[in-house]
């Protein structure tokens, strides 16, 4: 039977076969630490003394990561969870002091609120700008790699997807080592033969570029986790990435919440907007919200109307996120869907020439 390490706000216990082998009672000051996925130092020492080298199962990923530097800990499986739950319940029934854990939780929650509201949107802005930087760098390096590797195997440029192209080079290097489906063209390639060390340096570049792709994925995941906490409504309405871009362009959630919808509509199209204001050219219909699939994917003459409707909902979403925190995005989303359906129905055909191209000169 395995050993279970059971964490509760009442204390930390080690059990085998339902039997208590060790129980270290938690004082009030220990509870926050336990809730954060750490064990008090003196507890770790005690457990280490008794159970070093034995496999111990825990149900908290954070504890597994942190504790494996001292002990042989593993993450509990679904079957183990049942047993852990049973023991926890017993501990709670016997020892829980409600008022004590309630006081500690309220204090901890206050502390977390203080930390959470401390400019978390600044983190989002940095992360999304890092994504854009990575995109630029990846593009630059991939075009370098394409030119370079084309000296050896120009026909591979038919692989249009950058990431796939990079992976092929990283994996195979020499064109004669390519898998079946490329061998035919590889044999009749116009490219020059290369020494292994020439190819090695290209493969090395390819593998660095691949790491940049992984980095980008990591950042996107981070944003997908962070945006719903800081701006749940924006996140649901347009997805975490576009929500982050809007915050970045506005300079923060607070500023975004205070912008009129008409400005949100053209955020990211400043050049076109000022061209309109200064020279009287046509105003931009959309800024970065062009990335929203239903703006981008609609016919040209509907886009502006859809962008305007979307910007109005975004402005409400940003205000809810900044001022109240209540999640109303589903209502906003379905209102928007209704409006988009209406626009599509009403403006099925492009407007007649002449009527639409009135340019507004001052």
């Amino acid at each position, binding site marked *: 039977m395995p050993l279970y390490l059971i*964490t*509760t*706000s009442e204390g930390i216990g080690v059990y085998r076969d339902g039997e208590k082998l060790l129980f270290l009672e938690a004082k009030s000051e220990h*509870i926050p630490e*336990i*809730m954060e*996925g750490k064990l008090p130092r003196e507890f770790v020492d005690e457990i280490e003394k008794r159970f070093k080298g034995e496999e111990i199962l825990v*149900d*908290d*990923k*954070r504890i597994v990561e942190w504790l494996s530097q001292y002990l042989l800990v593993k993450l509990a499986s*679904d079957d183990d*969870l*049942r047993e*852990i*739950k049973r023991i*926890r*319940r017993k*501990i*709670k029934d016997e020892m*829980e002091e*409600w*008022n004590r*854990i*309630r006081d500690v*939780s*309220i204090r*901890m*929650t*206050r502390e*977390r*609120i203080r930390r*959470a*509201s401390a400019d978390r949107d600044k983190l989002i802005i940095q992360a999304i700008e890092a994504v854009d930087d990575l995109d630029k760098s990846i593009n630059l390096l991939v075009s370098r790699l394409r030119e370079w590797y084309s000296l050896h195997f120009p026909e591979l440029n038919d692989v249009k997807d950058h990431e796939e192209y990079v992976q092929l080079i990283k994996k195979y290097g020499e064109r004669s080592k390519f898998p079946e489906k490329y061998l035919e063209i590889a044999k009749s390639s116009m490219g020059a033969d290369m020494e292994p060390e020439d190819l090695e340096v290209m493969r090395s570049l390819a593998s660095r570029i691949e790491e940049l792709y992984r980095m980008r994925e990591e950042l996107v995941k981070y944003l997908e986790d962070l945006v*719903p*906490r800081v701006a*749940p409504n924006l996140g*649901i309405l347009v997805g975490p990435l576009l929500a982050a871009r809007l915050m970045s362009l506005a300079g923060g959630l607070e500023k975004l919440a205070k912008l009129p919808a008409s400005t949100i509509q053209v955020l990211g199209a400043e050049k076109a907007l000022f061209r309109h204001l200064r020279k009287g050219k046509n105003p931009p219909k959309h800024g970065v919200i062009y990335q929203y699939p239903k703006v981008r994917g609609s016919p040209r003459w509907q886009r502006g109307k859809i962008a305007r409707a979307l910007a109005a909902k975004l402005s409400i979403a940003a205000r809810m*996120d*900044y*001022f*109240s*925190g*209540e*999640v109303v995005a*589903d209502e906003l*989303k*379905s209102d928007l*869907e209704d409006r988009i359906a209406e626009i599509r129905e009403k403006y099925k055909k492009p407007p007649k020439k002449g009527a639409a191209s009135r340019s507004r000169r001052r």
Partner: protein
Amino acid sequence: MEITKHRFKGVYQIKEEDRPGVEIATVNLSPGTRVYGERIIRHSGREYRIWDPYRSKLSAAIHKGLSEMPISPGSRVLYLGAASGTTASHVSDIIGEDGKIFCVEMSSRTMRELITLCERRKNMIPILGDARKPWEYSSLVGYSDVIYQDVAQPDQAKIALENAKRLLKPGGFAIIAIKSRSIDVTKDPREIFKEEVRKIERGGFEVIEVKRLDPFEKDHAIILGRFEG
């Protein structure tokens, strides 16, 4: 005015002369304070808070004739997605001084309001955390008799199952509010509810009832299930 006990313990029915229909209410555990601007009725030494079915999905489900109500005086409830505490405050009323409710809410802005509610009501504990990561509050919650979930996330079934696995006692109940539009706006709600029921059954629940909430809430349902363990 006529006040009678509802067949669910801790819930009352109120019929007022000048208003149509019967309303439901709970007895205010924190007399003299309102939570969301609800009407308060004082009658023979007690304070009743009217439980608005247009504001609270659980109230809507009761109005629509929910067959069983696992939340009763003394229950230990894990409430996922407590928001600013509209429904949670009525749950707090029902379970009373012997009951316990853990309120998990992810948004720190919403939590600001919820925490003042928790300070006034001795049976509530606030948890600022993500319902997708139940291990982060397992050591505090330990176990529960009932999980009430209203999170409006596309992966809500998974969230319910993860929490049940770790924190719902065998034979305990889950009440899950499903919003079809937060799963897929384009699909027929009936299809979505069916699919969610299947997911929950696969995770070890016996689904007792699926209650649609219209006309109080559009495209919403409450799923009531018993956890086999």
